[in-house]
């Protein structure tokens, strides 16, 4: 590390906001993938001005910069593979303004998703993105990945639920894009361009998020089917009725087998399961539930269960919650992909994945957000088994080929980072990637912001 660069950083930040000990830096080199790289320096800014000055210094000295929240991402996007500077937002964690009258909240990037939900809930609101890691993950990270969760089927992801961003570009310029209004675009929509760009275009320093009113109550429904085809038909049928559910999750037969082994009460003939949440109030809620129940009864439907209170709902979700611990028990370092295909192609995807599982002798378990075709594909591998790891890479390659063949996309919410970067060419052509590089260059001419991530080299 250039000592002149160190001196420049020390002029910007007090000593307690700079970490240089290796032991301290070590923990900032991980995310939730299996990757690690040691940063040369870690900084903990408190203000947007500090962020801008640090980015400017990195720009001037051409030092790689990786921004991070809590490191819950699964794609290596916050792993500082070029060393350089890691900017952690753990101390920019204030809720700046809760504006109930205009249904929005303004936060610093280090605020967790759960803190936003709690602050919003006090006024009867929620923010739509609800990733599984909500208790730990930060808003900055959510926006960088365009994270979502079960509720996206009805309410969309970060891109649809963010009104304004303040951010710092790769030259250290502070920009504000979007506005505090329903219609938030003046000129080009840079807000949505920055959201999902994984810290490669600009560093988000403040976000104003759109809040939605919480429903008075919810019903949870569980349906089982004798085949994946039947479940997919039910998904289409449920999505075609006017009242879109606020969650529509599914598990395939291998996932069901796992939770059966852990004591879940799922009949032996069930080959697929759907969990659906509808929301509303009073008789309208029951009518919405009845409409879903009717739509879900396609040929091949086996069983319906309806929860009428929080306790019964928790029992239904228990099956889903049992799945992740069961998977971790079998394969603590599983490969977790999140691909997207059109809903009608889910059966073809699951069939293809089962064939790949048999061919490569790697157990593959699938579950996810069926309503928008976003499937979490879990390869239960042992990373210490080098032969299996080698075949897992080839298997993954085939998984992505299958997804593209089925008109799908390689990622719905986990992002690209490093893990999927070299597969992106399957989805985007050279001209498309070249154009994205051209955009990146305009935001970050020295390629310091999370270089090597998201976009494959030209």
């Amino acid at each position, binding site marked *: 590390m250039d000592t002149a660069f160190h001196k420049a950083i020390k002029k910007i930040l007090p000593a307690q906001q700079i970490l240089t000990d290796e032991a301290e830096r070590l923990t900032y080199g991980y995310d939730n993938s299996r990757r690690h790289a040691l940063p040369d320096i870690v900084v903990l800014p408190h203000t947007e001005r500090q962020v801008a000055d640090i980015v400017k210094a990195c720009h001037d000295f051409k030092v790689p910069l990786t921004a991070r929240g809590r490191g819950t991402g699964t794609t290596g996007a916050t792993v500082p593979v070029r060393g350089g500077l890691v900017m952690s937002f753990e101390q920019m964690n204030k809720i700046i303004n809760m504006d109930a009258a205009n249904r929005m909240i303004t936060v610093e990037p280090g605020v967790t998703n759960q803190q936003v939900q709690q602050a919003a809930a006090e006024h009867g609101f929620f923010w739509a993105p609800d990733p599984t890691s909500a208790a730990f993950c930060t808003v900055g990270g959510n926006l960088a990945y365009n994270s979502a969760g079960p509720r996206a089927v009805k309410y*969309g992801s970060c891109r649809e639920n963010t009104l304004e961003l303040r951010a710092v570009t790769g030259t250290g310029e502070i920009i504000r894009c979007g506005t505090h209004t329903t*219609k938030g675009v003046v000129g080009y*929509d840079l807000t949505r361009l920055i959201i999902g760009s994984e810290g490669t275009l600009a560093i988000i320093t403040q976000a104003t998020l759109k809040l939605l009113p919480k429903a008075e109550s919810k019903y949870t429904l569980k349906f089982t089917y004798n085949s994946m085809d039947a479940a997919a038909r039910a998904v289409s049928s449920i999505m075609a009725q006017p009242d879109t559910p606020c969650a529509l999750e599914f598990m395939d037969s291998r996932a069901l087998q796992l939770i059966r082994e852990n004591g879940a009460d799922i009949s032996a003939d069930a080959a697929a399961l759907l969990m659906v949440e509808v929301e509303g109030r009073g008789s309208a809620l029951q009518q919405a539930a009845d409409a879903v129940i009717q739509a879900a009864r396609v040929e091949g439907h086996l069983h319906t269960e309806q929860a009428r209170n929080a306790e019964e709902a928790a029992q239904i979700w228990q099956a889903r919650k049992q799945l992740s611990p069961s998977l971790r028990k079998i394969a603590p370092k599983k490969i977790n992909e999140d691909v997207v295909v059109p809903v009608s192609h889910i059966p073809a995807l699951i069939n293809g994945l089962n064939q790949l599982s048999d061919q490569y002798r790697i157990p593959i378990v699938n579950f996810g957000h069926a309503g928008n075709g976003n499937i979490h594909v879990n390869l239960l591998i042992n990373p210490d088994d080098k032969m299996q790891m080698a075949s897992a890479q080839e298997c993954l390659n085939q998984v992505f080929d299958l997804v593209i063949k089925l008109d799908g*996309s390689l990622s719905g919410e986990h992002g690209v980072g490093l893990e999927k970067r070299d597969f992106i060419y399957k989805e985007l052509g050279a001209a498309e990637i070249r154009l994205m590089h051209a955009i990146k260059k305009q935001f970050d001419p020295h390629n310091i912001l999370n270089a090597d991530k998201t976009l494959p080299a030209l």
Partner: protein
Amino acid sequence: MTDHTARQLQQQVQQAIAEQQPLNIFAGNSRAFYGHPVAGTPCPVADHQGIIDYQPAELVITVKAGTRLSEIEQTLAEHNQMLAFEPPAFNESSTIGGCVAAGLSGPSRAFSGSVRDFVLGCRMINGRGEIVQFGGQVMKNVAGYDVSRLMAGSLGTLGILLDISLKVLPRPASRLSLKFDMEEAAAIKSIRQWAGQPLPISASCIMQEQLLIRLDSTPSAVDSARQKLGGEIIDDSIWPRLQHQQMDFFQQDKNLWRLSLPPATAPLNMPGEQIIEWHGGQRWIHHEGETDIFALTSSLGGHACLYKTRSRADNIFQPLDTQLMTLQRNTKQAMDPMGIFNPGRIYRGL
């Protein structure tokens, strides 16, 4: 699929690049009033039309940019589906390409989302004369940058839209429109309070000391909301006239401003009739006085657009600060390095 119209457009772009001649892109030309006039070789895309793929079960339609909105909406209606952002169609020749390029949404904007929210992917001609494709036909996609959404609202300044995939939604099972007699301040307060509750208010309009709202949901949810809100039942005819801007208010020969403001903003102390939509977030005013509307909206945390003007204006859209303007120009430079697509339609230099 024959794609000769796309190839013809590509050839025209390649020729324009070679000759460094700007293009004036249009289809139905129904939104010609919106934005600055463009000096360039006419580049009509209306012949590139037709529905490419429609899968009602997938809630996705893929269409060529020159396809008329009326054709798309009729096709969707046959399957009880709709474009939930209620795009304004200014006449029969309005196309989906113009709709996405202009980024204009209708009365349901605050409830369902904007046209941009419903764009899943697009195929386009870029500033190198290449045909490129972004996004797809699936509901979620985070592979690379969200270029297809960047195209929405860019008024043809970043490239020529060829094909667009849009998310569609089922039509509501039940609809009811209500009227409340109240002054503007009270109406803004009421709609603000109601919009903060889980009520199916899919559209609202404040004008002439009346608050009009539309409820869209299941019959029992609509009934339940009606019980809670009260009001006088009116017919639904106001909403399409508002959507397509057919009311007399929009036809007057005066400068028409469109203001985007935080929804709870108090009534604007401005002379003349106003229409307030999107639960307070969008306000239409006729204004030809001295007040600097851009400064006013900026001070209120919003922005403005001189939507229709009787004469040439220096600024149609809210002026941007230097940093943001530079970044907008840089984005244009990345997409259209020769500056041939609709130059100056939004801002000078874009």
